[in-house]
């Protein structure tokens, strides 16, 4: 049986609502059982709200805990804290306290059951106070309306394109709506905050049209823009993703005094990026996690693909570093004899060219000598046989001028002394590195 009823009151309140219950057993002060129960689900949704309640008839901790759990279930249920009254006009079968009835409200869009907890009847009808509804009706309504709004918004697509053209003191926003959009206008939201959520404080322009001039923006401060469309019924589309630009100031496009902030640096895309025409990223400053060759655990830095480098005019750069060895044998030495050997060589590089405008510096050093216990090194040295020789020494430097070379070869000279007689074989190791300087 359906009866015409009018919703009189639908409210909820937090009076008495709690998500944490401190339950105390019999006794006084600290000399009593006490347990603290938390409804974590309700705390997450509604916050921590403490209430304290005594259970003087609790006989032990388990009993106190059981009683407290029952009580917490009641006080942390928002449905228990709503007031619902309806007015039923005319004379009907008399209602009784405790009866459950079904209540529907087409305008608010809910249907629920509830228990009659109060009856006020007069000549014109009855007002029923209803309780014990199974859920918070306001939460139901809120959730339902939010869902409906989302559904409606989905039917109104966001603008399909937004372009920003910086001007000396602002920007021009060009908006393109879908061909069949029922939108009658758009809202343009502007904020200097990266990742901002639009609200009335960020609304910069609103109305029909597709071209909006935003003026009065500070130069060199990046502004983020999001746009949404609206229809003639007040429904809004979702917002577009944010795009950004900065008022360019007077003159040609340039970076002027100010700063470039990349905030939310943890985000993967938080970086300055340089890409080749094919779209491949070749240089990146900022968050470089996951880029090829970046060690695990490194999040921020400057990354370059193979083929990139850092070049600063006039600063020495490393060309190559390496080591090699040459060997020699001195035959028929007598004990105590000292004998020199020149031209112990090894090749460092094959053909190469020192480009015009560059000077290469070659640094060499004898790294080790491996004599057996029958000889000892008296003197040693190196020289590049391609151009120069030098007096024997344990290290040497020389310069390569700009031209083409067939090879770079290091040549050692040594003087050894035989402790015992016989043939003596040895190996000399040399380390080298080459630096270049651009003029």
């Amino acid at each position, binding site marked *: 049986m359906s009866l015409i009823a009018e*919703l*009189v*009151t*639908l*409210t*909820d*309140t*937090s*009076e008495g*609502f709690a998500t944490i219950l*401190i339950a*105390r*057993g*019999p*006794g*006084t*002060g*600290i*000399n*009593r*059982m*006490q347990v*603290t129960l*938390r409804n974590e689900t309700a705390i997450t*949704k*509604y*916050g*921590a*709200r*403490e209430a*304290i309640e005594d259970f003087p008839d609790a006989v*032990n*901790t388990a009993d106190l805990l059981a009683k407290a759990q029952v009580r917490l279930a009641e006080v942390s249920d*928002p449905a228990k804290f709503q007031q619902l009254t309806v007015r039923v006009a005319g004379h009907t079968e008399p209602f009784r306290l405790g009866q459950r009835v079904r209540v529907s409200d087409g*305008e*608010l869009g809910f249907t629920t059951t509830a228990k009659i907890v109060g009856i006020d009847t007069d000549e014109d009808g009855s007002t029923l106070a209803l309780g014990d509804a199974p859920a918070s009706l*306001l*939460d139901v*309504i*809120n*959730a339902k*309306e*939010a869902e409906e*709004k989302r559904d409606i918004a989905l039917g109104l697509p966001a603008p399909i394109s937004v372009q920003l053209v910086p001007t000396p003191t602002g920007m021009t926003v060009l908006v393109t709506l879908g061909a069949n959009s029922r939108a009658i206008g758009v809202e343009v939201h502007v904020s200097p905050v990266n990742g901002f*959520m639009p*609200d*009335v*404080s960020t609304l910069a322009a609103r109305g029909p049209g597709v071209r909006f001039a935003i003026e009065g923006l500070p130069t060199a401060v990046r502004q983020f823009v999001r746009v949404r469309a609206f229809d003639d019924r*007040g429904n*809004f589309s979702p917002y577009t993703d944010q795009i950004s630009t900065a008022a360019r100031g007077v003159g040609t496009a340039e970076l002027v005094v100010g700063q470039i902030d990349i905030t939310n640096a943890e985000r993967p895309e938080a970086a300055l990026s340089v890409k080749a025409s094919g779209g491949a990223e070749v240089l990146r400053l900022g968050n470089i996690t996951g880029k090829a060759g970046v060690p695990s655990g490194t999040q921020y830095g400057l990354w370059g693909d193979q083929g990139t480098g850092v070049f600063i005019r006039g600063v020495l750069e490393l060309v190559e570093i390496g080591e090699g060895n040459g060997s020699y044998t001195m035959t028929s030495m007598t004990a105590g004899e000292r004998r020199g050997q020149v031209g112990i060589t090894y090749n460092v590089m094959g053909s190469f060219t020192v480009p015009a405008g560059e000077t290469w510096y070659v640094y060499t050093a004898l790294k080790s000598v491996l004599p057996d216990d029958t000889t000892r090194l008296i003197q040693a040295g190196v020289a590049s046989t391609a151009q120069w020789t030098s007096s024997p020494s344990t290290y040497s430097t020389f310069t390569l001028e700009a031209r083409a070379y067939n090879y770079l070869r290091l040549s050692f000279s040594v003087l050894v002394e035989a402790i015992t007689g016989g043939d003596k074989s040895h190996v000399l190791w040399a380390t080298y590195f080459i630096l270049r300087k651009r003029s």
Partner: protein
Amino acid sequence: MVLSARILDRDRAVLAVLPGAFDARYTRRPLSATEVSVSVPRDSPGLEHAVRGNLLEVWRGPTIEASGRLELRDVSGGIITLTAYTEEILLKDSRLPAAYGAVFSGMDAADVIRACLDGWAVARIKSASEWADTTGTSKTTAVDAGGGTLWLARDGDGKYERNGYAYYRFTAASIPNFKSWDRIRWASDYPADGLVYTTIQYRFGTSGTWLPNVTWPSDGDPSQTLTGERGVLPDEQGLSLGGATNSILEVRCNLYSDDQDSQEEGETGTSGTSPRFYALEVVARTTGLVTVGSIPASTGVTMQAVNADATTAFDVIRDACEQAKLDFQVLQGQLSAAEAFGPSLVNVVNLVTSEGRAALDEPSTIEVLTYGGEPVSFGGEFVTVEVPT
């Protein structure tokens, strides 16, 4: 100036701005949490965020006028009316431990106000099963009498041991939003007859010296060495832990008896006497919802007779402000206490009643305001003055 309402989550992030808000109302009263209400159309975007427990702010232009926690929603009239209580209400969700007033007695009112901004968490051992659940023990036993007590064990001859101990572990991880350790409180026997004794010791961690490491001889013959803290008002003030933040706290209950000879009623032999621990409580401080704003360094008013038996932080702060003749308010999560909020307006505002008796050439020189021909006194009263439109 445009009036607007904002809904914030409990971390104060803005969830929605209600552009269609209207009929914003709020009241302010000293030492109170008062109502803030605003009505919005039911189709307002972002209204789904208006749920119990979230925060409501009322702004006029760039200035916040009132803020509070959402407490009541009403859709009865086809619109939704949101009612919040000003943020002082957040302090009502923080409960003090039982019989805590002695902790505040003798403190400056400003210090009491500051001390009430963090929350409390209590871990109590009372029932026999809780007493029996020790981390370590020697010669003690839990007895299911008097709601649960800890006694000395009996030796092989049926006599109570001369001394024993039990200790219990408390961890910061088990306390939500733990901030620091506050104090240890206990209820136990320490009668004046000098036959039985109880003391408390603690340590941070699972090893090391028990503190306080203080010893003195008992009164018995032969006497024995007593160690630890006997306490003054042990079940109220207890033993302060100084705000330590260690992850583990262990508390040791020491029991001593100098009586192994007395007879209990109905006994044929002798058994002596055991002291008892009735309750042991560790109080921790938790991170509060309200932080310190502008609070005087001191008020010069020492708190007396503080009623703080499981009452709320709001009640204690209100009492402190009343004793120090201050008002307090919480705005955007910060509590400030002062005699007045904002500068004096006597040189700026001239309220002229319908009687018009106070119309002066220089508003800054008002000295006498009359109403109905009688001088108006402002001493501690609220005066409603009608300003003709």
